[in-house]
């Protein structure tokens, strides 16, 4: 496999854009990434795109084809990749593989989404074989309740307090306030977070990501091409995809086995381990981590599940400001999902853009000092997960 460089990062800010189509959001991101790389659309040899569930794609998830038609139909191959909330970084893995394998020298990876308002719904079909339908009809348990149950268990096991969870949101919004691409750019405080509406105990509105519109794009190329374009390319150290294991403790339907041990989010853990191994880095080498914080719970649980810190240590790191951009283990300097909201299939790519800007030292007021290695992670419906390691 060849070395792969990430030479262009582009993003349309996250928010709600009633008067813009998903194609317009993607065009903005794609053009910005091309300009950043210093290349033209016609230089792109293939497109790997996240299949959106909610917007564009001709109803078939053909979002990459929409982008190609909009930017100019050059006849390039298009790979549309569907993987729930993990799709953006799954598409990145396709783009990475296309370049690493030697199939193409320059690939555009893109993800864009416009979300309907409110909680993400099931298919809407009353299908008795659909576990999502059974969970909601027989138990009255919507999606966010899952996070809440895990979170409440953590409070029991580690003594995590509601104030500590609120502090995760405060930290996220502090970073988001410094990020021009974030949707929520106003700082908050513990009192305000705990006073925000209780969505599903113990999680409050400010502790759960909203749904947003957004798009992001990354230009990947071979080492040879990269050297023609820049003296300081960012390298893809690792790009991994995994799915959940059978014995995972997070029940995917309404019932499963009592797990033999604590094996939660096995898909994310496997992807992270693989990406770090590919990159030849360990937890101590990570300058920053962009993880999928649909809720504040994940920012406490994931670092432990991946061995970035000891079980129960996440709260200590938080309380001692070690997860801020200037701490020992900076987490989500972008502001994370809490500050961006979730444009589901585009999320993995906004994270990778943040890694790129941080490694180049272009992250402005939220810059992680001397950032050399960054890792991002997504997790999506169907037991999909990804991890990406970028390095200087």
């Amino acid at each position, binding site marked *: 496999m060849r070395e792969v460089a990430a030479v262009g990062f582009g993003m349309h800010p996250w928010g709600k854009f009633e008067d813009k189509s998903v194609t317009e959001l993607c065009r903005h991101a794609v053009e910005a990434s091309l300009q950043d790389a210093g290349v033209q659309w016609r230089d792109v040899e293939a497109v790997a795109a996240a299949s959106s569930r909610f917007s564009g794609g001709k109803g078939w998830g053909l979002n990459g084809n929409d982008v190609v038609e909009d930017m100019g139909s050059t006849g390039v191959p298009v790979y549309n990749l569907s993987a729930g909330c993990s799709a953006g970084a799954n598409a990145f893995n396709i783009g990475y593989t296309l370049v690493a394998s030697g199939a193409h020298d320059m690939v555009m990876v893109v993800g864009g989404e416009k979300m309907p308002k409110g*909680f993400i719904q099931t298919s809407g079909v009353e299908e008795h074989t659909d576990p999502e339908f059974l969970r909601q009809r027989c138990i009255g348990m919507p999606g966010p309740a899952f996070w809440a149950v895990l*979170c*409440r268990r953590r409070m029991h096991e580690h003594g995590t307090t509601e104030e500590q969870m609120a502090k995760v949101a405060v930290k996220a919004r502090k970073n988001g306030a410094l990020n021009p691409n974030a949707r929520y750019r106003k700082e908050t405080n513990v009192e305000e977070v705990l006073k925000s509406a*209780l969505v599903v105990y113990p999680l409050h509105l400010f502790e759960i990501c909203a749904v947003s519109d957004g798009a992001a794009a990354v230009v990947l190329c071979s080492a040879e091409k990269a050297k023609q374009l820049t003296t300081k390319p960012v390298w893809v150290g690792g790009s991994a995809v995994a799915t959940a294991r059978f014995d995972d403790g997070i029940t995917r339907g309404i*019932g499963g086995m009592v797990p033999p041990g604590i094996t939660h989010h096995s898909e994310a853990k496997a992807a992270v381990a693989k990406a770090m191994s590919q990159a030849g880095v360990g937890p101590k080498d990570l300058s920053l981590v962009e993880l999928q914080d649909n809720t504040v719970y994940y920012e406490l649980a994931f670092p432990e599940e991946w061995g970035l810190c000891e079980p129960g240590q996440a709260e200590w790191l938080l309380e001692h400001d070690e997860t801020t951009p200037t701490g020992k283990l900076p987490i989500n300097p972008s502001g994370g999902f809490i500050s961006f909201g979730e444009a589901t299939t585009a999320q993995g790519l906004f994270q990778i853009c943040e890694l790129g800007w941080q490694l180049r030292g272009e992250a402005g007021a939220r810059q992680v000092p001397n950032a050399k290695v960054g890792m991002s992670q997504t997790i999506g419906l169907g037991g999909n997960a990804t991890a990406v390691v970028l390095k200087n």
Partner: protein
Amino acid sequence: MATVHAVEGLFADTPNGPRLLGSRCATCSAPYFPKSPVCHNPECTESKIEDAEFGPTGKLWGFTFQVFPPPPPAKYDEPFKPYPMGFIDLDDGLRVLGQVSIEDLTKVAVDMPVEMVIEPLFHDEDGNEVVTWKFKPS
């Protein structure tokens, strides 16, 4: 007006009491709820699926409260009353999701011993009482 199940075939009031209706692999003993036509355990050498009943006793692994009316396809009686729900680890090896049936919400606790019951969930358009599986403190 009658009593109907939220979804047919998932649970029953058996001569031994309320049980969940699932299946289990005779080779690797992996539990399935709802029933599965085959064993999905990648470590299992031979799929031998048999009907199995689960419950009634276990522990509440983790919980939350639904504090606002859940969106469709969930259904509830007006006026909406908050309810606890969570993951229940049954003694027979099934981790199952369910509501917790309890009057005093402050008494819900992690690792609380619970027992399966069949109780009303909502009333449908024809006035039928729609029931589901829940867990009460035991």
